[in-house]
């Protein structure tokens, strides 16, 4: 049974230094608030897994929480580079970052395999690509029936997955709608899953075949309205395109980045205080 906790409590109780952590959400429902809370609590030496490490991981990497990144597409979508990611990879600031690089199909399959309790995933991938030359974890397996050689990749089994969803009921059952990405698989692949939600309701009113994560498959559910900003929560909020663009100059230099997280993340008690501070700044 998921406990209904504050995000602070959930991160305190379920995320340890050194954990492998997946914050998933495919342009939709990105769990930004969780990233902030990991920074506030100064979590260290995390191995971060995410298909598309965008702002949510640029933050964690720049703040010094990460020692390794497992990913398949790293950029600020529609804007350009992730400056904190590049600085860590290229210059080792604030600490060296090991990277392990895959394709989307690989990681999506690896989450499916993780959710399925399998140690590896099989897919038709990478023939002719140089990625296996730089990632020794991309191996192969031969079909015992046809002899076809397919790619074999290790499943992803995070210690903790955090996702954001539209709503939970009071027992902690969670409903996700719209672009689903790999969130369900990431949650089920993890030892512990935390879900931040837009609202907690009496009745999910989920269609019969909707994407529902039952409470007993989750560790914690946290009420964090707007917790996916600057991405969106279908039916609740729009994507804040402007913020993606504004992020570029903030993250470009170590100084401006540090000043920003000191003010907006380390300088706020929680996500609602952060939102208020951000709104006040934008009103200027």
């Amino acid at each position, binding site marked *: 049974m998921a406990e209904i906790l504050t995000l602070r409590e959930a991160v305190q109780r379920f995320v340890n230094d050194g954990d492998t952590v997946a914050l998933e959400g495919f342009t939709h429902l990105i769990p930004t608030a969780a990233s902030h809370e990991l920074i506030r609590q100064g979590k260290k030496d995390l191995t971060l897994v995410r298909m598309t490490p965008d702002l949510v991981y640029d933050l964690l990497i720049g703040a010094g929480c990460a020692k390794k990144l497992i990913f398949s597409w790293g950029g600020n979508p529609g804007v350009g580079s992730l400056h904190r990611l590049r600085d860590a990879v290229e210059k080792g600031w604030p600490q060296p970052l090991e990277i392990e690089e895959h394709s989307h199909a690989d990681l999506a399959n690896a989450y499916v395999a993780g959710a399925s309790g399998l140690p590896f995933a099989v897919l038709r991938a990478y023939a002719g690509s140089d*990625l296996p030359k730089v990632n020794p974890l991309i191996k192969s397996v031969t079909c015992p029936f046809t002899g076809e050689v397919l790619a074999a990749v290790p499943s992803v089994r995070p210690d903790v997955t955090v996702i954001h969803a539209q709503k939970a009921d009071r027992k902690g059952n969670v409903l996700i709608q719209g672009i689903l990405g790999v969130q369900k698989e990431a949650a089920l692949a993890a030892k512990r899953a935390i879900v931040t939600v837009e609202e907690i309701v009496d009745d999910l009113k989920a269609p019969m075949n909707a994407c529902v994560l039952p409470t007993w498959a989750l560790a914690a559910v946290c009420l964090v309205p707007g917790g996916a900003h600057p991405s969106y929560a279908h039916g609740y909020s729009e994507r804040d395109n402007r913020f993606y663009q504004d992020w570029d100059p903030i993250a470009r230099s170590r100084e401006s980045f540090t000043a920003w997280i000191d003010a907006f993340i380390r300088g706020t008690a929680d996500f609602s205080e952060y939102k208020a501070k951000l709104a006040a700044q934008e009103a200027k």
Partner: protein
Amino acid sequence: MTYSTNEMMTVAAARRLGNGSVCFVGIGLPSKAANLARLTHAPDVVLIYESGPIGAKPSVLPLSIGDGELAETADTVVPTGEIFRYWLQGGRIDVGFLGAAQVDKYGNINTTVIGDYHKPKVRLPGAGGAPEIAGSAKKVLIILKQSHRTFVDKLAFITSVGHGEGGDHRKRLGLPGAGPVAIITDLCIMEPEAGTHEFIVTALHPGVTREQVIENTGWQIRFADQLAVTEAPTETELVALRDLEARTAAAHGQLGGEE
């Protein structure tokens, strides 16, 4: 009507999408061209985005690969794992429509790194969905602006394979799809030469010279014997494209992603 070279590129790319074909769409230029096709000659083209929407019919261009309007206008929205497993690897994609940071003469794509992988000169975003789109789609279209920096003789890194080392190399790799069948740029259209699978120019856009193409290609580009001239964008195409971009700007306060 006058038009820009970018408009010519988008229109020329859109024309390559047959009506009713099932297209796996990359964000940015491919998405723009695919939606232009849908709004002009190919109303029944099926657009699939890797985030999960199948049959998306957005009225404005998405800024991200997972915009809400893609979900709202789709026939259904499935998990990302299913998109790659049942729909792409399952062999149901007619056309993979890709952008690229760099291509070589065999249509191989680099979106990973310029320079050494471990000491990069420029670190690019990485593979995303492209390696398996390039491998499993029945055919691939590549759209990108042409320059010496983007059309290179030797890629530092092959992220997504085209025709490999040319000839029958792709076949020997056991890949199910036919690979890239055209590269559409702001200057011309290139197609693979029979046998060698080296990309050669088969059509110049109106007003573009061979010299311009040679200058903007990092390998010794060759031209087909029967070199065509691309038909200029029609008024219908241009109006549809500009309306789409205007709607996008009005909706998002910015143009559809061109990254």
